[in-house]
């Protein structure tokens, strides 16, 4: 009985990491090309933008909230950065600054709607999602943005994406091999590290976890619960706009159709993160591993010639298994 329950405890704690290691071993044996630096970087690059968004939504999950607007914030940042450079002809720095400000503003509005307007988080951010999806299409009358496009007043857009801006999505730094690691992966690693330190090691993160666990008790301990709730949505908005900037820089055009999957993939990664190390709660390390897990699985299966259209099914299945790990298993021996 004792050994059975301690086995379950071990399985819950390390099960997901063991599963990921096993997948890597199996894929490497089946396809030796899987175990190369290029393949590893490809996986990282495929999950970089999703992962950055997922880290942001993790902050809102920590305070027992949810942000459904992250996908639309990212695509809005994509369209905004294209509009600023291509139509207005402004530079990379202005584009990036405006996108970050837009993300922070959306997060602030989300937070105020939830905290001051007392609108449930899912509904407020769902409304914001629809609003942004619509808003980003209005300036271009629903068209994608690229150099040479015809504007409303009949003139032609003459601006181009600044090379400095495109570098954010395309430049690769030398690591082991020359020109290996794209900047987006570097950003993912930096944001993951910062978010982990912020949530696990600073008093602000500590307080946010307290709010997520028992907001009433946190308030009675003298914590300004509303301010931290709003902060969480601002963090989420800013990270989502970073994701959008990187996406724009990679694509090099303001494409209205891109980024459809960002929301679901990011939320999935954050929820898979609950299962990592048996945390049973949102956490930055778990979110990063969750994003990576999906990337490893998809890359491996693609190399084994699994068809493209099965990907969403696989992601969904991984998510359900992870949630079982977290809630059904750990609930039994944990809080009961």
């Amino acid at each position, binding site marked *: 009985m004792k050994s059975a329950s301690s086995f379950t405890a071990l399985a819950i704690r390390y099960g997901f990491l063991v599963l990921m290691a096993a997948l890597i071993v199996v894929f490497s044996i089946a396809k030796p090309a899987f175990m190369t630096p290029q393949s590893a970087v490809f996986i990282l690059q495929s999950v970089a933008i999703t992962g950055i968004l997922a880290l942001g939504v993790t902050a809102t999950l920590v305070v027992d909230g949810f942000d459904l607007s992250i996908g639309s914030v990212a695509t809005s940042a994509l369209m905004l950065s294209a509009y600023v450079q291509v139509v207005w002809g402004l530079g990379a720095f202005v584009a990036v600054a405006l996108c970050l400000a837009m993300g922070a503003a959306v997060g602030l509005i989300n937070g105020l709607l939830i905290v001051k307007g007392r609108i449930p988080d899912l509904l407020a951010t769902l409304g914001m999602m629809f609003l942004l999806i619509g808003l980003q299409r209005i300036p271009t009358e629903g068209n994608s943005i690229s150099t040479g496009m015809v504007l409303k007043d009949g003139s032609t857009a003459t601006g181009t994406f600044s090379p400095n801006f495109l570098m954010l999505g395309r430049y690769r730094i030398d690591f082991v091999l020359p020109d290996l690691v794209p900047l987006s992966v570097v950003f993912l690693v930096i944001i993951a590290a910062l978010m982990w*330190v912020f949530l696990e*090691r*600073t*008093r*602000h993160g*500590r*307080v946010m*976890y*307290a709010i*997520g*666990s*028992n907001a*009433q*008790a*946190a*308030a*009675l*301990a*003298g*914590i*300004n619960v509303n301010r931290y709730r709003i902060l969480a949505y601002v963090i989420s908005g800013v990270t989502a706009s970073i994701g959008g900037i990187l996406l724009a820089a990679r694509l090099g055009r303001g494409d209205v159709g891109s980024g459809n999957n960002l929301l679901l993939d990011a939320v999935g990664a954050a929820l898979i993160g609950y299962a990592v190390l048996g945390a049973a*709660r949102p956490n930055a390390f778990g979110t990063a591993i969750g994003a990576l897990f999906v990337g490893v699985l998809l890359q491996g299966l693609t190399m084994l010639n699994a068809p493209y259209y099965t990907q969403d099914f696989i992601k969904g299945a991984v998510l359900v298994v992870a949630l079982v790990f977290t809630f059904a298993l750990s609930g039994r021996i944990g*809080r009961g």
Partner: protein
Amino acid sequence: MANGAVTIRGLTKAFGRNTVLRGVDLDLPAGRVTVLMGANGAGKSTLVKVLCGVHGADAGEVLLAGAPFAPASPAQALRAGIVTVHQNINDGVVPDLDVASNLLLDSLAEGGAVFLNTRRMRAEARQIAAAVGLEIDVGRPVAGLSLADRQLVAIARAMAQKPKLLILDEPTSSLSMAEAERLFTLIERLRDDGVAILYISHRMSDIRRLADRIVSMRDGQIAGLFEDQPLDYAGAVRAMLGQEIAEMDIAIPAPGAPVLELRGLQLRPEARPFDLTLHENEVVAIAGLVGSGKTALAGVLFGLARPVAGEVMLDGRPHRPANPGAAVAAGVFMAAKDRRSNAVIPDFDIQRNLSLPFTRRHSGTFALMRGRSERATADATIATMGVVCQGPRDSILTLSGGNQQKVVVGRWLAEASRLLILDEPFQGVDIRARRDIGRRIRESAGNRATLVLCTELDEALEVADRILVMSEHTIIGEHRNENIDLAELTAEVAGTGPAMEKTA
């Protein structure tokens, strides 16, 4: 008189190992208002829930008009004629529907024609409303009504069922005096129509206004029945609080400089203003029943509420905290009551629960937490409070209730405060933990003023230098904790003491 009455014999109910009702015998005669009193956890609400079909009894029987009665569901109890108006008014009405639909809800729920005839419904609803003296446009949505009107709607709806027994669970807790008076008039009409009424309340003014008889509950049993006129209110309170109050040796130190001064503080529009001064090196307990205003006072001091009128001075300066954070910054700490909902962070270990209000103190550059400092404070608090645990990294939920309480009290003793408020610090705590916590509160009281709020008198006697009594949101009595006249103290708690008239 026995007609329509409810008779309860040997009613027993346990939840797991916790026996809540231990053989309750009670008669509820028709045409009388029976007031039920009892401290938290005495078993009042469980008794009500058995009567209205939420819980089944383990043993014993209930006779309704002489016939055995064991409802399997609230709907069945309602059909049999037992109607309950719950404390939470919105349990009794559907806010989004209009008054007419609410009044007819029970008959609607039973089925009938597929389509509703609005005109006929409204006519029927008007009749029901008129029967209880409720003058209101039945076409209005309930969401637009005042709390008092909603409650009358809930009662009118219940009365449409021609009840034999009407149970009211603290119905006036959110009503103004004028609103409560309307409710009392209605209750008296129903009583005169021959309905048996079970009225649960802590408010002595309600009880004096309405009670034909008083039943006191304590520890799952009926501790006293009072029906001789005039009613012995102090006796009822004594029966409810218990008489086995232990004498404690309290050495009362000389109080220091004044810390907190309240001048003309008024907690509710209809409550009498009061003055109060708390000194350094002094532990003051405020005793009073639930709803007597203790928690309202704590709320004003801790930035959760604003007083109606009056001044609060802390160390000679005005103290008007906008929120608990501001109160803590000003040196006013509060360990809230109901630790499970108001104090414990269930996902955190002991150490993190302890450091929660003072994370800034344990963090350095870039707000990074300093683990060693946090750990040292946790170790010290665990040692001084006598928390029984493996170590500071244990989950808080692995602790017993008493040890959890030591953690949530110890949390606020780790830093120096000017005023420490402890709201029901002995709630749900065994006798040993209670002594530990009380001793620690007294030992640490030197450089601050300490205010302990408790419902149970023996807790106040164990911990305080001075005991104040609150009733009706004002202070009605003050006693130095030596050779206290217990009879007078309980009389004051019951709101019948001589001090009621003379205190300014």
